[in-house]
């Protein structure tokens, strides 16, 4: 039984980490990171069975792939707070000689990262391949992936959606961060896509569809449990996760302005006042 209060506290600390990391190097992507903080917190602290000692092959454990690699600050914070590497290392984010590269990579051997991502549209294919290997290995654990909604404009995703359904990759749960925003504006303005028509398109490709509120931990925990119960039934599972970019910071929420810029000193101070520190800051 999930302790929602505990997850809420963790997510608050992870958001603090995220903003301080971006502020610390004056670069990075806070908007999508804040929006996905609840999801990644729930995934790593409640949903997945994973081994913090980290083995690249991930045999006998659930594995996760981050396709929208630009939300690296929240991913790194979740990994560190899960025990994959020292929390203190978060202060090296995006700085010279760091293992915490601007976008996640395996090149620096950061525990918890299994593939480089950042150039968009590639994570779904990788996750499908890893899920196939689990099947070949008779490994009954699950492969999870997170992607952005703007990212679905990349054609490779549609190849992967077709492939996973055709090959009945039913140990794969993909979540899309449906915040409706991308660099040049709303996903609707840029490419005519929104949560509703993404749902229709992906369903037409042969996937099971679920919806959840990505900024409500109870909704995430319940939906992920339901998704898990739907695995092994011949279809891959796709979750449309409604989030707000920048959630819950009052001057960031819902605006794509915060996709890829750092808060000023005053903005950071104001944001941190809205996020209680529940563990010790790094």
């Amino acid at each position, binding site marked *: 039984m999930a302790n929602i209060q505990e997850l809420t506290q963790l997510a608050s600390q992870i958001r603090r980490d995220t903003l301080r990391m971006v502020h610390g190097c004056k670069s990075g992507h806070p908007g999508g990171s804040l929006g996905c903080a609840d999801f990644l917190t729930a995934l790593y602290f409640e949903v997945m069975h994973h081994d913090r000692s980290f083995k690249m092959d991930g045999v006998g454990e659930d594995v996760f792939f981050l396709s929208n690699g630009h939300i690296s600050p929240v991913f790194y914070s979740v990994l560190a707070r899960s025990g994959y590497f020292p929390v203190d290392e978060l202060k090296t984010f995006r700085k010279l000689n760091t293992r915490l590269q601007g976008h996640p990579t395996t090149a620096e051997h950061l525990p918890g990262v299994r593939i480089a991502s950042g150039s968009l549209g590639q994570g779904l294919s990788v996750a499908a391949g890893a899920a196939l290997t689990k099947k070949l290995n008779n490994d009954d654990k699950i492969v999870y992936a997170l992607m952005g909604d703007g990212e679905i404009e990349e054609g490779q995703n549609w190849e992967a959606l077709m492939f996973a359904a*055709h090959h009945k990759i039913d140990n794969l749960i993909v979540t899309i961060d449906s915040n409706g925003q991308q660099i040049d504006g709303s996903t609707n303005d840029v490419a005519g896509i929104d949560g509703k028509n993404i749902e229709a398109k992906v369903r037409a490709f042969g996937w099971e569809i679920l919806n959840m509120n990505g900024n409500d931990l109870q909704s995430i925990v319940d939906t992920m449990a339901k998704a898990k119960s739907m695995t092994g039934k011949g279809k891959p599972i796709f979750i449309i996760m409604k989030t707000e970019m920048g959630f819950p910071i009052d001057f960031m929420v819902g605006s794509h302005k915060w996709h890829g810029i750092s808060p000023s000193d005053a903005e950071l101070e104001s944001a941190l006042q809205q996020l209680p520190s529940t563990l010790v800051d790094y």
Partner: protein
Amino acid sequence: MKTYEVQNIKDTRSGFGAGLHELGKSNPNVVALCADLIGSLKMDAFQKDFPERFFQVGIAEANMIGVAAGLTIGGKIPFTGTFANFSTGRVYDQIRQSVAYSNKNVKICASHAGLTLGEDGATHQILEDIGLMKMLPNMTVINPCDYNQTKAATIAIANHVGPVYLRFGRPAVANFTDANSFQIGKALMINEGTDVSIFATGHLVWKAIEAGHILAANGISAEIINIHTIKPLDEKAVMDSVRKTRCVVTAEEHQMNGGLGDSICQLLARNFPTPVEMVAVNDSFGESGTPDELMKKYHLDTPDVVDAVMRVLKRK
């Protein structure tokens, strides 16, 4: 000039198919993916005997590369198969990020490379693939010359941990190498000589041998070395030969920019500046025609190797 017995006339892609099938039997971690070209890539036997380890990806090469990268996580050794053009240029960023930068144990196996693809024309005749692949850190690039060598290379790369680009071709060509002579990164001495070093790769190795006989008849002693592994280049083999002959001809079915000749020129410029002539396609696309017609028109034929040797000897 050493004489090589032609064991038979066979396509290099069939060597790939045979090697892959053998791997299917010997290594349970080997899996294969194909983008709707099973017959062309000679992957039929693997598909028939190991269907649970074979994945038809359809005409979706970007996804194929990503799926292959994912398959490595958990210990599989994926071999992807499609034409060289669709194995490289079409999926460069997928290879760069998900395979090379991520250092995944993916074997990118590419048929119908170069002009000898023939009648389909320049849309399919990639002449830039060696350059594209050799520029990627972590990537090993192999371009075998005949059936035996392609089969041996296919088997060898399964035991090499890391990304590999294996390039082969469509037409039936002389099959003459010793099946046991292949070793990744180790250049193969074809003929010891003293006047000129000919470094050839892929289909041009046999042309270089034919040229060697013509040169010998004219009193010229050509050292011919088969550079099947373009990266990492066997620098010692190249330098040992060049220190002896002091002039070089490179020969390949690829653009001059970015190919084997380019790698050798870089090595020599840094260590031992030497006259070089290059038999390669010079900043041009190909066109439709038979393989033989195209090799003649684009100056990749036996007389072109001879001419290049005559030119470089004058610059010595």
